[in-house]
């Protein structure tokens, strides 16, 4: 679906070479967070609150410190005071202050000569708690009489009279909603709920930190963004960020959950107290689930009006979202603008509150807020389509956003590909498969903004004509390969001659994390500019040797050429020739580019899923699944397909099984993968993909981020498919077998 007005026919862009990190990863040579060790290294363990809400009366570490081999214990008393705002929240979450705010909240940490000894010592640290009333459910947290967890938590946006657990409020919209509903033939209103889910990355958080008495430190850490780790850790510990050097490891998944700190500063605090010996801390899976940020849970009221011909006349939503015991963590600011982003509707009203509850501090999770919002709005659209006997793709084609549409959150869209994804889904063979008994089909579209952000990239030409690119965005989804392809295309040299390295904080200017689907877009855009800078210098070197003007030299196919007959007759001078003698022609040749990258282009996708539901057990089997998404330009199509499939798999898990289950005591009941059920390969069919390419004019190769949109449509698509199969609509995720069975029985 390439556009006629955009350059295509690239030599390297759009090919599928082997991944540069593939061999390291399949042979075990790749070094993940827990693989890093240093001589004299200590191991750490963390003492965590068993209570959802409790005052910390006393911490007695004397028995732990008496153990031979125990070198240091830190509590909040070892942290600096006087922090404010989000820095204080980060410090409060790293180690509890006077109160533990959720089950699993860190209270103390200990370093010892072995991991087992550290765990034994942690058990000997005696914490005296005074248990306080707690609340974990988003609706219960706003109910009259709910304990106010943190008095004064509301920010400027919260109108007077709201519950004391409301931290933030937002409202926007356009048009006359009431007139829109009056013009509709059918108006329906329901409440939809989604539970908190975890990013479920395979690699738990791990870090090694070392800090001397001089306040200078170094950290090796599994993270999506080491400059963020540096800034946040420095703030929590009250040191200068410049005194901290952070090196990222390979990363076994992040999905937003590794864009912030949880336990990383503890390694530095313990190291400093242990005389500067390095300290390693690796979280267990239970710690990851109890104490690192899942996404928010949500309770969402939706009202939509539709005419008999499928025209949507108005929409209205009120979202309640809790992101744990810390303000600013639930994604209401993203969920609201994402909710109706796929539509061009004349009248919309959006309203949301953020609520705090006794749960872990939420973190970003793949298209934060968008999956929940889509579950509510796309489920309601599907309900209306079924009631009015309308084709769900035709309704979306009729009401869907297109170039020139005013978005639901205000700005006008330019160069978007939603309509193209809908047409491709409609034309796909999956949409024509005849369904059997107990089978149903669901359709949903999804949106994510994408992001650019602070980016710094450097490129060096080698003496052998190769190029080494230094980037600051950890490679989670194949960005080294895609950036290598773009640099190869720009320089005109083989992909194998480009090496892309993720480097530490001391080697580049500030980089935001690999988040917001930005790495291939932003680091790629900067890498292309860095390559162009190196090309300019190489042309200059060739011009000097040929004794002609630099402007009379052009670069193509990996070599400098005279730009035309008037420039003179010289054989092409390759990058290898220029590199081999650069020491004698002016010195090393490099390029660099620093930018807050804009022009990132919005992302849309459409999914179609067929399921079969066992009417005896309520178990849902995904029969076939189709992801259609606009990639702008797919630099490395296999990685793009991988992102589509990965997003769909996570969304299917969210729809069918995943949920945080809290007991009446406020403790997490399922903090292991045995009970927190993420989909495994045998649960899913091969996920079919279609890459739509509506090039993004804001990128030299037309890239738009592809990492996040894919998780958004599965929630409503699966629930709608189950409704098709059973006649029963599940409005509260997950669609677990007991819930589906109960809904089927209620329908009978």
């Amino acid at each position, binding site marked *: 679906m390439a556009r006629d007005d955009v350059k295509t026919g690239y030599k390297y862009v759009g090919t599928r070479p082997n991944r540069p990190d593939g061999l390291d990863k399949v042979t075990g040579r790749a070094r993940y967070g827990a693989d890093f060790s240093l001589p004299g290294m200590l191991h750490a363990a963390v003492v965590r609150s068993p209570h959802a809400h409790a005052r910390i009366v006393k911490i007695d570490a004397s028995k732990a410190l008496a153990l031979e081999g125990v070198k240091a214990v830190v509590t909040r008393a070892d942290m600096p005071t006087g922090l404010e705002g989000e820095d204080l929240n980060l410090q409060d979450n790293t180690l509890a202050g006077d109160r533990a705010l959720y089950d699993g909240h860190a209270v103390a940490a200990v370093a010892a000569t072995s991991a087992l000894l550290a765990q034994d010592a942690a058990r000997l640290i005696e914490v005296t708690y005074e248990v306080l009333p707690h609340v974990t459910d988003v609706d219960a947290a706003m109910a009259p009489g709910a304990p106010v967890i943190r008095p004064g938590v509301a920010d400027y946006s919260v109108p007077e009279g709201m519950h004391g657990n409301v931290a933030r409020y937002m*409202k926007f919209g356009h048009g006359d909603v009431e007139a829109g509903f009056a013009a509709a033939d059918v108006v329906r209103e329901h409440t939809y709920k989604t539970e908190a889910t975890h990013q479920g990355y395979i690699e738990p958080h791990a870090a090694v930190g070392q800090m001397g008495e001089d306040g200078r430190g170094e950290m090796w850490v599994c993270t999506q963004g080491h400059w963020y780790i540096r800034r946040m850790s420095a703030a929590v510990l009250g040191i200068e960020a410049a005194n901290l050097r952070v090196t990222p490891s390979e990363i076994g998944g992040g999905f937003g*959950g590794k864009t912030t700190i949880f336990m990383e500063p503890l390694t530095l605090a313990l190291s400093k107290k242990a005389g500067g010996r390095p300290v390693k801390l690796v979280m267990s899976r239970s710690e990851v689930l109890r104490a690192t940020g899942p996404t928010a849970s949500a309770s969402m009221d939706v009202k939509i009006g539709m005419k008999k011909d499928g025209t949507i006349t108005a929409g209205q939503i009120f979202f309640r979202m809790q992101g744990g015991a810390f303000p600013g963590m639930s994604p209401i*600011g993203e969920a609201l603008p994402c909710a109706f982003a796929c539509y061009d509707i004349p009248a919309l009203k959006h309203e949301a509150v953020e609520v705090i509850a006794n749960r872990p501090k939420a973190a970003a999770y793949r298209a934060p807020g968008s999956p929940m919002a889509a579950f509510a709005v796309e489920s309601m659209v599907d309900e209306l389509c079924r009631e009015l006997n309308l084709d769900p793709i035709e309704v979306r084609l009729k009401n869907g956003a297109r170039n020139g549409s005013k978005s639901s959150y205000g700005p006008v869209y330019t160069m978007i590909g939603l309509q193209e994804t809908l047409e491709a889904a409609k034309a796909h063979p999956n949409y024509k498969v005849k369904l059997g008994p107990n089978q149903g089909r669901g359709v949903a579209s999804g949106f994510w*903004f994408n992001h650019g952000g602070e980016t710094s990239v450097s490129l060096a030409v080698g003496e052998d004509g190769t190029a080494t690119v230094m980037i600051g965005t950890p490679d989670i989804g194949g960005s080294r390969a895609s950036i290598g392809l773009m640099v190869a295309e720009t320089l005109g040299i083989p992909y194998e001659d480009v090496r892309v390295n993720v480097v530490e904080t001391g080697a580049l200017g500030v980089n935001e994390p690999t988040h917001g689907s930005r790495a291939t877009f932003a680091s790629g855009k900067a890498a292309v500019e860095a390559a162009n800078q190196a090309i300019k210098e190489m042309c200059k070197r060739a011009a000097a040797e040929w004794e002609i003007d630099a402007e009379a030299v052009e670069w193509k196919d990996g070599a400098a050429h005279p730009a035309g007959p008037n420039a003179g007759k010289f054989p092409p001078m390759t990058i290898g020739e220029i590199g081999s003698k650069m020491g004698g022609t002016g010195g090393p040749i490099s390029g660099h580019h620093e930018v807050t990258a804009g022009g990132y282009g919005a992302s849309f996708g459409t999914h179609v899923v067929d399921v079969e539901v066992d009417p005896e057990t309520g178990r849902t089997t995904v029969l076939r699944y189709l992801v259609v998404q606009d990639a702008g330009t797919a630099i490395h199509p296999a990685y793009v397909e991988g992102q589509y499939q990965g997003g769909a798999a996570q969304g299917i898990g969210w729809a069918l099984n995943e949920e945080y289950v809290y007991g009446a005591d406020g403790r997490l009941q399922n903090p292991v993968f045995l009970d927190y059920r993420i989909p495994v390969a045998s649960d899913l069919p091969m996920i079919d993909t279609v890459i739509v390419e509506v090039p993004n004019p804001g990128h030299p190769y037309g890239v738009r981020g592809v990492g996040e949109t894919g998780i958004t449509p599965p929630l409503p698509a699966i629930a709608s498919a189950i409704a098709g199969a059973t006649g029963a609509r599940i409005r509260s995720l997950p669609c677990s077998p007991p819930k589906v069975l109960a809904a089927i029985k209620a329908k009978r």
Partner: protein
Amino acid sequence: MAKVHLWASLRRFAEGQEVVEVDAATVGQMLDALEKAHPGLGPAIKAGLSVAVDGEVIANNRAAPVKPESEVFLLQRLKGG
């Protein structure tokens, strides 16, 4: 002058205005002028905003240009995964 659209719950800090006209050449100048004219918007601006200028969402680049005919929308600061 650029037209800056405020989301509904911000309007109470700007005398109920939905659109505020601002004379600014950059996003940074626009935000400074907004805060100067309507100090009640200060906490929202300090908390961090994303800004859409003529259809393009700009996360945090104060240097991004704003034209006299620009249509600007303020959004809550967007975070990605």
